[in-house]
C-alpha cells in the first residue's frame, strides 16, 4: 500500500515546486495514516469519511482552479456547446451512454483522451471502478458525494423521516434524463439540474441566462445537498436524485463485493436501517440478510452493528464466512481507487491552498 500509493499519487515523478511537493507529502501521509488506522481498528466508515468528505470541497477548489487556468477570461460554461476540452464528470457520462451506443459519438464538448477528465479516460475509470466496486463507486470515488455526506453528519438525529418511496426516484431520474438527453442530443441533467454545478461554475456578469441558471443550480444545491441531508440525516442527493447512483445500482451486480447481514447473529435492533445513508437497508432486506442493490459499501452499518452481524462479503461464498478476508479484499481496490482518483484532487487543492496562503494566488 505504501509503495503503490506513492506511485499512484506521484504519478511517476516528484513535483518540482515546493507547493506541490508539500501537497504530495500531506496527501500521502494522510491517506496512508487513515489506511493504517482502518486496518488497525477494524473500522471502515469513519476513516473513509475522513478522506471522502473533504474530497468534495477540494474538488471544487481544484476544478475551479483548472477551469480558470484553461479558459482564462471565461471561467464559466457560458457557451457550453463550444467548449472542446470540457472535462466530463461520471454523472454526465451516464447521460451520454445511450447516444454513444447508438452512434459511437459522444455528445459532450470534450476530448476523447489526453486531457484532464477526458471522456474515454473517464469511461475506462468508470467501467473498471464499477466492475470492481459496483455502487461502492458512490462512497469511495465520487467527488460530489462528500457534500451530502458531510451535511448528513451535522445533526445527531434526523429532523424528519423522508418517505420510503423516494428511494426509487433515482431510477426514474436516470430513465428520464437518459431519454431526454438522447432525444435532445444534449446532457440535460448536467446543464440544467445538476446541483453541484452551483459549486463548479461561475456566472459571468455579461451573460444573464447563465447567471439565472447558476442561481437555479444554487437553489437546487442548497435544497438537495445542504438542507435535505441535514434534515433527514441521509445522503439525500445521492439517495433520492442522482441518476449515476441508479446506474451504479444496476452495474453493481457484477461486482464481487457486497455487504450482508448474518441473520443468525442479527438481534433485529434496526441500527443498520437507521444509519444507512443511502436507505439501502429495509426491514424486508434485513430479513433476507441482504443490503440490496442500493448499498454503496460505505461500511457504516458494519461499523455500527452492535452484534457484528453486518459484514463485507464476497458473492458466491457462504454468508458469514471469511468476514475479514472479504473486508481486506474489498478495502484494497477501494482504497487504491480512492487514492488515485481522490488523492490527485486532494493534492491539487492543497497545493492551490498553499499557493493562496503564501503568494495570494491559486495558480
Amino acid at each position, binding site marked *: 500500500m505504501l509503495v*503503490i500509493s506513492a506511485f*499512484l499519487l506521484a504519478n511517476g515523478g516528484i513535483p518540482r515546486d515546493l507547493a506541490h511537493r508539500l501537497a504530495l507529502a500531506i496527501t500521502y501521509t494522510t491517506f496512508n495514516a487513515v489506511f493504517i488506522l482502518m486496518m488497525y481498528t477494524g473500522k471502515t466508515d469513519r476513516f473513509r469519511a475522513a478522506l471522502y468528505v473533504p474530497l468534495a470541497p477540494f474538488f471544487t477548489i481544484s476544478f475551479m482552479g483548472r477551469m480558470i487556468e484553461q479558459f*482564462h*477570461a*471565461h471561467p464559466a460554461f*457560458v*457557451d457550453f*456547446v*463550444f467548449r*472542446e476540452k470540457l472535462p466530463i464528470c461520471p454523472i454526465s457520462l451516464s447521460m451520454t451512454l445511450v*447516444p*454513444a451506443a*447508438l*452512434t*459511437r*459519438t*459522444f*455528445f*459532450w*464538448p*470534450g*476530448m*476523447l*483522451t*489526453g486531457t484532464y477528465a*477526458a*471522456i*474515454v*479516460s473517464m*469511461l*475506462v*475509470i468508470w467501467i*473498471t*471502478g464499477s*466492475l*470492481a*466496486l459496483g455502487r461502492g463507486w458512490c462512497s469511495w470515488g465520487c467527488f460530489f458525494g462528500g457534500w451530502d455526506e458531510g451535511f448528513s453528519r451535522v445533526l445527531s438525529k434526523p429532523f424528519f423521516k423522508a418517505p420510503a418511496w423516494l428511494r426509487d426516484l433515482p431510477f426514474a431520474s436516470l430513465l428520464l434524463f437518459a431519454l431526454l438527453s*438522447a*432525444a435532445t*442530443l444534449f446532457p440535460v441533467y448536467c446543464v440544467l439540474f445538476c446541483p453541484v454545478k452551483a459549486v463548479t461554475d461561475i456566472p459571468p456578469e455579461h451573460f444573464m441566462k447563465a447567471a439565472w441558471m447558476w442561481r437555479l443550480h444554487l437553489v437546487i444545491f442548497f435544497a438537495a445537498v445542504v438542507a435535505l441531508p441535514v434534515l433527514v440525516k441521509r445522503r439525500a442527493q445521492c439517495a433520492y436524485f442522482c441518476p449515476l447512483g441508479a446506474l451504479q445500482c444496476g452495474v453493481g451486480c457484477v461486482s*464481487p*463485493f457486497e455487504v450482508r447481514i448474518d441473520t443468525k447473529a442479527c438481534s433485529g435492533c434496526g441500527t443498520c436501517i437507521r444509519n444507512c445513508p443511502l436507505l439501502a437497508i429495509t426491514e424486508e432486506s434485513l430479513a433476507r440478510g441482504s443490503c440490496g442493490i442500493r448499498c454503496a459499501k460505505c461500511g457504516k452499518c458494519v461499523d455500527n452493528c452492535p452484534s457484528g452481524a453486518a459484514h463485507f462479503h*464476497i*458473492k*458466491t*461464498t*457462504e454468508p458469514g464466512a471469511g468476514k475479514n*478476508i*472479504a473486508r481486506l*479484499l*474489498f478495502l*484494497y*481496490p477501494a482504497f*487504491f*481507487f480512492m487514492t*488515485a482518483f481522490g488523492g490527485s484532487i486532494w493534492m491539487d487543492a492543497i497545493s492551490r491552498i498553499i499557493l493562496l496562503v503564501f503568494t495570494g494566488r491559486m495558480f
Partner: protein
Amino acid sequence: MALKIKNTGYAWAALTTPAMILMLMYNENLSRALISAFGLRISPRFSGGEIVRTADHGRYRTNIHRPVFNGLTGDRKTGFIQVDWEPVTSLPETIREELDIYGNAEKFIVILNSADGTVSYENKPFYVAEDPIVSHFHSGWAVRIGLKKGGRNKEEREGDQGGLAGAAQRNPSLQSQKPGESRKR
C-alpha cells in the same frame, strides 16, 4: 462444485486490486484502444463539424465548417454551420464573410462586430435562423448559424453539388472525423 464456485468468487475479488492498479497506470493506453476498437468520436454537434474551407485574409483567417445536421439516427431538420475567425489580436472591428451553404448561388453575408460580438446578416436566406450563437475564445471568435434543412425542396437537395454542404458530400473523409480525432483550435 460448491468449492469451485466459492473459489471463483475469491479469485474475482482478488483480481479487482491488480485490475484497478493496471487501469490507473495504463488508463491512456486503454482509452486509445477503446477508441480505435469502437471508432468512438465526438459528435459534430459539439465539435462543430470538420473544417471544409479556410479563407486567408492576410491579417486573419476564417475557418468554415461543414453544415451539421447529425441526429441520433439520421439527419435532423435543423442544424448549424460554424464559422471561426482567428487570431483574435488581428481581427478588424467589423468582419464580413460571404457564405454559400448549398452552392445554389443563394449567398449571404455574415457580419461580426468583434468588439461586442454582435452578428448580423446581409441577404439572409429563409433557411438561416435569426439568432446565431456567438462565442469568444482567446484564439478568436466563433459563430454558429442555425440552419433549416426542410426549407429546401427535394430537387434542390439532390442538386446540391457545390457550396459548403457539397464540399462535405464530395469529400467523404469530411463526413466524419477519424476515431480519436478532434478539431484543433
